[in-house]
């Protein structure tokens, strides 16, 4: 572990508020470029809704393609927030502190993006209210709650609500800080948002208790979200590659894998863009990479089980599907890429401390993981549907159309755009967490060795 640096509170404030109190030079050009991409994406989506889903590459029997893959991908990314903020909070992992805000943000924005996909991918999106809204006056029937597609919006919107609250509660002390440092309309905005935050002990206590309670309450939702997404697939007995009992935990652990990797990517970017070297330190990357090694290896075990039990039945269609998924062009190329990027390249690299503390390497390996995890979802969804059923009439492959690719790219631009917009008004590293970690860490002398220590409540 590195030597602790004493950072005084004035320095912390000045440094961490550098995005709000003055605008970095790169901010406006970047946001403008992203804005253009977002605009193009919106136009393409509008065109697609106007013309119909014929503009996609979907064809029988592949009725779900790139959109659903990307939906699952973004829902997966959203698991970063609660993983980092809630689970690590409950297990009292000290190194989570500078990362919490970014992870929660990623949750909120990726969920907002994920929600778009099932909506635009429906045949008649303008009737989607019938699907999502639990009340239906016009038709006299309620939605079919047996359908995982009903459980999906319920789980995701609950998760989104909870995550937003979580983010907001953690933002309160920083909002109070910003209110005291701004003037004009910004001051008015922060005043309203800070809800009269003064930082007195009662407020702190409520903020802490609120955070802990939300952490505990959010955990089941966190698990349920991706489980339900996985049941979208797993309950279909007719699709051999989908009907596996392991899907729920397999998807959840895969989501944590990709989500935490996305947080690593974000942390590296934050460190470079806002020059927060004092706050986002190599030891944080080190700790995250260690966590990732465990998560990734757990995920690998689930992958192994999934494959083993796919072949367990020794049924011809299942074996044929796996043969196609792994050994037939073009799936084989995707499969190899998936395996290399999701596990075989990054994880052995993380075994070395030199890699774990090298920010550039961590940045690139974490991006690799997400390439791999996106491919994983693609390889589950599309070959699963494109399987060769006994009916030759339905043998057809799927090739995503340019429209689908554009909307896919839009989703990335959109999340980054929202993130940068947010960073202009709110600090990305929680100030109070940074200060708290200063107070809560100490060194103790054991014999002649100076050992880093943290403060814990007594039992």
């Amino acid at each position: 572990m590195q030597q602790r640096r004493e950072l005084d509170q004035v320095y912390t404030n000045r440094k961490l508020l550098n995005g709000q109190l003055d605008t970095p030079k790169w901010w406006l050009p970047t946001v403008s470029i992203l804005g253009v991409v977002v605009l193009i994406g919106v136009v393409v989506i509008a065109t697609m809704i106007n013309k119909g889903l014929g503009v996609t590459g979907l064809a029988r029997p592949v009725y779900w393609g790139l959109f659903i893959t990307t939906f699952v991908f973004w829902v997966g990314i959203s698991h970063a927030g609660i993983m980092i903020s809630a689970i690590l909070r409950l297990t009292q992992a000290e190194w989570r502190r500078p990362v919490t805000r970014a992870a929660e943000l990623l949750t909120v924005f990726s969920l907002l993006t994920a929600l778009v996909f099932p909506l635009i991918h429906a045949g008649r999106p303008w009737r989607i209210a019938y699907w999502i809204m639990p009340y239906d006056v016009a038709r006299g029937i309620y939605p079919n709650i047996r359908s995982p597609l009903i459980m999906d919006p319920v789980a995701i919107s609950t998760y989104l609500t909870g995550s937003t609250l979580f983010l907001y509660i953690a933002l309160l002390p920083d909002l109070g800080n910003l209110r005291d440092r701004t003037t004009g309309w910004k001051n008015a905005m922060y005043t309203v948002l800070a809800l009269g935050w003064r930082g007195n002990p009662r407020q702190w206590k409520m903020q802490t208790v609120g955070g802990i309670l939300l952490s505990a309450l959010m955990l089941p939702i966190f698990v349920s979200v991706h489980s339900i997404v996985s049941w979208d697939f797993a309950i279909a007995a007719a699709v051999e590659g989908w009907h596996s009992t392991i899907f729920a935990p397999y998807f959840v652990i895969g989501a944590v894998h990709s989500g935490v990797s996305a947080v690593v990517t974000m942390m590296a970017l934050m460190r470079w863009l806002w020059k927060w070297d004092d706050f986002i330190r190599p030891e944080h990357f080190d700790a995250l990479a260690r966590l990732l090694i465990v998560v990734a290896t757990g995920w690998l075990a689930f992958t192994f089980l999934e494959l083993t039990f796919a072949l367990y039945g020794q049924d011809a269609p299942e074996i044929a599907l796996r043969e196609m998924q792994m050994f037939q062009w073009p799936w084989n190329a995707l499969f190899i890429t998936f395996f290399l990027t999701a596990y075989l390249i990054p994880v052995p690299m993380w075994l070395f401390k030199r890699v774990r503390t090298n920010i550039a390497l961590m940045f690139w390996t974490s991006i690799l993981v997400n390439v791999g995890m996106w491919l994983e979802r693609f390889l589950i969804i599309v070959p699963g549907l494109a399987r060769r059923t006994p009916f030759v009439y339905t043998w057809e492959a799927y090739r995503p159309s340019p429209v689908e690719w554009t909307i896919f790219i839009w989703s990335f631009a959109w999340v980054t755009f929202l993130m940068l917009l947010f960073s202009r008004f709110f600090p990305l590293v929680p100030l109070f967490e940074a200060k708290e970690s200063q107070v809560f860490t100490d060194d103790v002398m054991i014999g002649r060795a100076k050992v880093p220590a943290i403060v814990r409540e007594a039992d």
Partner: protein
Amino acid sequence: MTNEAVAHESDHHAPPPNVAADVVARELVATTTGASGRFKAWTWILGILSVVGIAALIVKFIDQGDDSTKWGYVAAMVSFLLSVAGGAPMVAMAPVMAKANWVRPITRIASLFSFAGIATLIMLIPLVAILPPLVTEGARRRTIWYMAPDYSPHIWSTLGLVLLLLTGIMLFYSAALPDFASMRDHSTGWRQRLGKRLARGWVGTDVQWRTLRMRIGMFGTFYFLILVFVNFLISTDFGQSMVPGWRDAIFPMYHTVSGFQAGVAGVVIALYFSRKYMKLEKYIHLDAFWSLGRLLFALTLLWIYFFYSSFIVFWYGRSMNDIATLDLLIKGPMIYAFFAGMILLWFVPWWILIWNKVRRGTGAMVVGSFVILLGLLIDRIRTFVPAWSVPPENIHQKWLQEIPATVWPDVFDILIMAGGISLVAFTVMMMTRVIPVLSVWQVQEFNLLAKPIRYIKGHATLVAKPD
């Protein structure tokens, strides 16, 4: 500065006093001698029950060795004992990897359970002889051994269990070296001689410590891998593949996780009794119960999650496989066990362990642990007994056509189950006579690394985190 410490302000009480290192060594070594009358009586009872159980196993093998449908309860017992005796040492391992301080004093008691693996092995021997080969009547059944030689499951499961036992003992021994040295220095009679022999010249040099930690890490990782491997083998070969059409990818994972759950419950029980009857309140802090309680609670929730994950996929799937599997394991002959398991393994412990007050105490924790162990036993019966009740001539069908009737335990089964459980308790109790029930050096380390401090108005602990 206002974090968790503030949230629990009302719960604060003074931290337990620090004990000097040499007192720790003397007191803990002294626990190995001078067993109370009650302890001796219990050991006798458990010992006799174990012998009766083993005898029943032999008689049953001679009597019913040719009918595999009668061996479900023994299979359930293998799985149950594997869960408890195999899972418990993981409690010692997992948090060590996460550098948790509270776990240090209790690693020993957890790793004592690896000796109980001998009970699992004894139960497995007749079962291996009875397990049908992969190819029966020219047809191959569904297994993970696609093209492997005929008797692969028999060989690998046995090897796995033996390896698990050996690794567990090695894990125990590699962490026990300094304690054997304390026995050499502080004990008398055969214990001193044993300590001298087994301490292998331990004096505590830097190199020795480094080797020790490396060994613990190595055997710990190895133990974990073997445990997962054995869990996978036992649950698929002795459970799933006995039923045509039961294809449940999560079942091995489910088996492993409930194994951890049973392990933690077993450790809590052992910890409770040694704390209470060996007067170890000074060393076994409530913090350990609190942390174990949270772990147990998390594992309980994980259990229901894994169970539900497989249940809902069968429920919705409705293919012939799915329907037959549900009919056999849940709706059919085992419906009582299903409900009992649900209540005992999930609902009751859930409502017990959800309370922070409970987790900070010992009494309700130990009740919860007993409930969990009982529930787990029933759950193992639910999965393994119907699996073995499928007649071997139907084993290679595509899916189960005919749901067998409920199999109730006979006298042998009851004696065998009582004997198996007694053997585990007996082994652990006997081992506490051989080596201190708490690891002396880990208790010393615990005291060294955690320092009670005054913090603002309350108490807190300053925990050092060495690399």
